[in-house]
């Protein structure tokens, strides 16, 4: 393995990947006869140019922090949790159950309760895949992605047949009670004299997300469980030698991962929609994979990557709204960013590593 300075690994690789994605996106925009510079300006203005834009950017960011952390925690145990989508859906169910059936006296209590139920159900959704991986060797990528479909079908059934209020045509639950409505950034910043857009959905969940980043950092680098998770992720035989129980670590890691993915629902379901709707996750579970990859599975990196993807989401929406660039192309641009920062990571990393370190013999020395 080459040895690259940490700063190059953490900063240079993602920045170069991002530039490559941007260049390619610019070419695509040029090819359909639009002006890439104008498009970039529009994206920046739409996502960051107003408190309304920021409000949406931060709202998406909050989602991506949760799902990004979920994937990152699992990565540390070398588990690929691709089921953030399904776990977040179940999280939504947890939020709905807490908000609909418990008469909360105050939003703060409701937030704590709903966070707990969201995490609980999200975590529960990983239990079977984790157990099957640990004891039966069923690959977690396959099982978690299949559980996405099961989650989707389950939510479909519940929202259409069970939780839909009588007489409603909409596959969604009833609106949550007033006492469970979370303060938005507008509400929170007003006492500080900062005027923030009233109609943007960013809410107090953002604070929970940032706290979760801190908690994950402590978990991974300061706790015994995190030590065991990392040891297990780096080398299973060594973990076995040290007496680290593979089943316990696999299940514990996946529960934490699923819990984090589930917590995303406090932002979407409780903070924004204030009821549970069909497809409330909107692909954030999958974006989490790119966020974790780009963030090097480090909470700080996840935070930054989530912000970038929040920007791309909101900027992309603005682009679709104000230009002739079709909605599909926005997805192409987002996909390019995911491709370069996530999947093609090694394309940038390996030449860089070679640049920083001289070649080493590939044949074992005897």
């Amino acid at each position, binding site marked *: 393995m080459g040895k690259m300075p940490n700063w190059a690994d953490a900063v240079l690789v993602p920045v170069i990947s991002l530039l490559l994605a941007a260049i390619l996106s610019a070419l695509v925009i040029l090819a359909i006869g639009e002006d890439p510079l104008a498009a970039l300006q529009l994206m920046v203005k739409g996502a960051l140019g107003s408190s309304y834009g920021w409000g949406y950017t931060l709202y998406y960011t909050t989602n991506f922090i949760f799902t990004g952390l979920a994937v990152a925690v699992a990565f540390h145990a070398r588990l690929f949790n691709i089921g953030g989508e399904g776990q977040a859906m179940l999280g939504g169910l947890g939020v709905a159950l807490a908000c609909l059936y418990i008469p909360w006296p105050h939003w703060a209590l409701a937030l704590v309760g709903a966070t707990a139920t969201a995490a609980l159900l999200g975590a529960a959704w990983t239990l079977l895949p984790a157990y099957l991986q640990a004891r039966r060797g069923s690959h977690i990528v396959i099982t978690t992605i299949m559980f996405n479909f099961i989650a989707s079908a389950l939510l479909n059934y519940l929202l259409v047949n069970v939780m839909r209020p009588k007489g409603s045509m909409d596959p969604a639950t009833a609106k949550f009670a007033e006492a469970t409505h979370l303060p938005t950034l507008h509400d929170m910043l007003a006492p500080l004299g900062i005027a923030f857009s009233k109609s943007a959905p960013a809410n107090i969940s953002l604070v929970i997300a940032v706290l979760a980043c801190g908690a994950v950092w402590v978990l991974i680098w300061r706790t015994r*469980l995190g030590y065991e998770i990392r040891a297990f992720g*780096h080398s299973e035989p*060594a973990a076995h030698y040290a007496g*680290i*129980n593979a089943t316990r670590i696999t299940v514990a890691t996946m529960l934490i991962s699923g819990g984090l993915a589930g917590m995303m629902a406090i932002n979407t379901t409780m903070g924004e929609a204030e009821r549970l709707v069909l497809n409330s996750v909107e692909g954030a579970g999958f974006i989490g994979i790119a966020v974790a990859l780009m963030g090097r599975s480090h909470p700080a990196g996840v935070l930054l990557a989530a912000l970038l993807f929040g920007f791309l989401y909101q900027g992309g929406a603005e682009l679709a709204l104000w230009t002739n660039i079709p909605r599909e192309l926005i997805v192409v641009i987002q996909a390019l960013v995911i491709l370069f920062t996530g999947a093609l990571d090694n394309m940038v990393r390996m030449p860089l590593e070679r640049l920083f*370190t001289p070649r080493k*013999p590939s*044949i074992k*020395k005897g």
Partner: protein
Amino acid sequence: MTPAIELQGISKAFGPVHANKDIALRVLPGTIHGIIGENGAGKSTLMSILYGFYRADAGEIRIHGTPVTLSDSQAAIAAGIGMVFQHFKLVENFTVLENVILGAEDGRLLRPSLAKARKELRALAEDYGLNVDPDACIEDLGVGFQQRVEILKALYRKADILILDEPTGVLTPAEADQLFRILRRLRDEGKTIILITHKLREIMEITDTVSVMRRGQMTATLPTASTNPEDLAERMVGRKVLLRIEKAPAQPGATVLDVQNLCLQDATGVARLKSVSLSVRAGEILGIAGVAGNGQSELLQVLSGMRPAQGQVWLNGQPIDIATPRADARTRRALGIGHVPEDRQREGLIMQFSAWENSVFGYHHDSGWQRYGMMQNAAIRQAAAAQMHRFDVRPPNPALEARHFSGGNQQKLVVAREIERHPQLLLIGQPTRGVDIGAIEFIHQQIMALRDQGTAILLVSVELDEILSLSDRIAVMFDGQIMGERAADATDERELGLLMAGMAPAGGA
């Protein structure tokens, strides 16, 4: 006489690391030339250059006086160079004949090639005493015979210069003797042989001339007759080395480990341990000798809690659970059983963890290293720094990742961690595999000091020299069984060698 191989000014750098620096070497035809040096001294790089794996940055290679460019192994073969690797490159479920012609077929149809090879193999067998059944499947052959197939492969390709990389690592002493007999015969028939090894004894026994490599340079080339092991060791390391550890007689105390009828079957139902019984007392070292793969690894895995098995095990007279999955390595450590695993890179260390994180690996539940589930990183870091100082780990930097230490220093990290716990029983597997001579000396001294403090030690090693120099008693394993047990001062390599080959000498257990 024109040398068979002549190297002039060979240099090869991997970035800032000069693996080979201005190497000159002359090997006369019809001789056996040894190349000896520590790990990382550049032996393998040099041989890789000679076999066309690497291209030298500078220098000239002459084969029988003709300058050659060895751009790949095909070119090396064409120049008459054959290589026998440490890890054989044979197709397990092919016959000897099929393996020999593999890559050297004469045409699209196999039959003529096979017929031709059969005739040539017969001739080679007659010329050099290399008898192998051409129709035997590789997987049915012993390691010694597999090695012969590798030599035959080289000879079939008309090699007249043969390079052998650590050829005796996997052989019993008897098999090694046979190999040496073959090598002598090859030499007498005019072949030139280069033998790479780290075993001084082999150099002395079989080579005509020897070159010593140190830090990428050829520090000496001398006739073997004019040197001795101590001299060679000093040239390898650059300082005087104690080759044989001085040990006081053991003062064995009460029985610490008692194993009765230990049996283990692997996943495919093959018996790996067949009713193994042994005991180790406080303050003594029981050495387990044997060729790799005869159940020693499994014995360590079972005793250290990494693998459940059937049978009875007592520690200090208390029976311990070895059969249920609950009997894991953690509970075994809690009982006072330390374990230096055979493979430090795969098991003993997390290569991506820093040295200080590794210093508590397996003991991270201890109250000193964690409280309420939070790791006490500052305390661990401090203790690790002190420990690395005591064990002379270089560089003494606890923040450095384990993978950036040399093999010897990695092993010191593992040994330090396990020894400084002062276990009741220490299980050690291959304590000095791939470790340079200077570090071997140090690790042996530490093991001996632990014995003298009253720890019971079970030592597994495939290096017979190591077993003989450290152990108080020696048990030999073959095919999952203990073939016999001897007091270390009442046996010799010859007797142990017979036991290692599965032959019970008269009067043996």
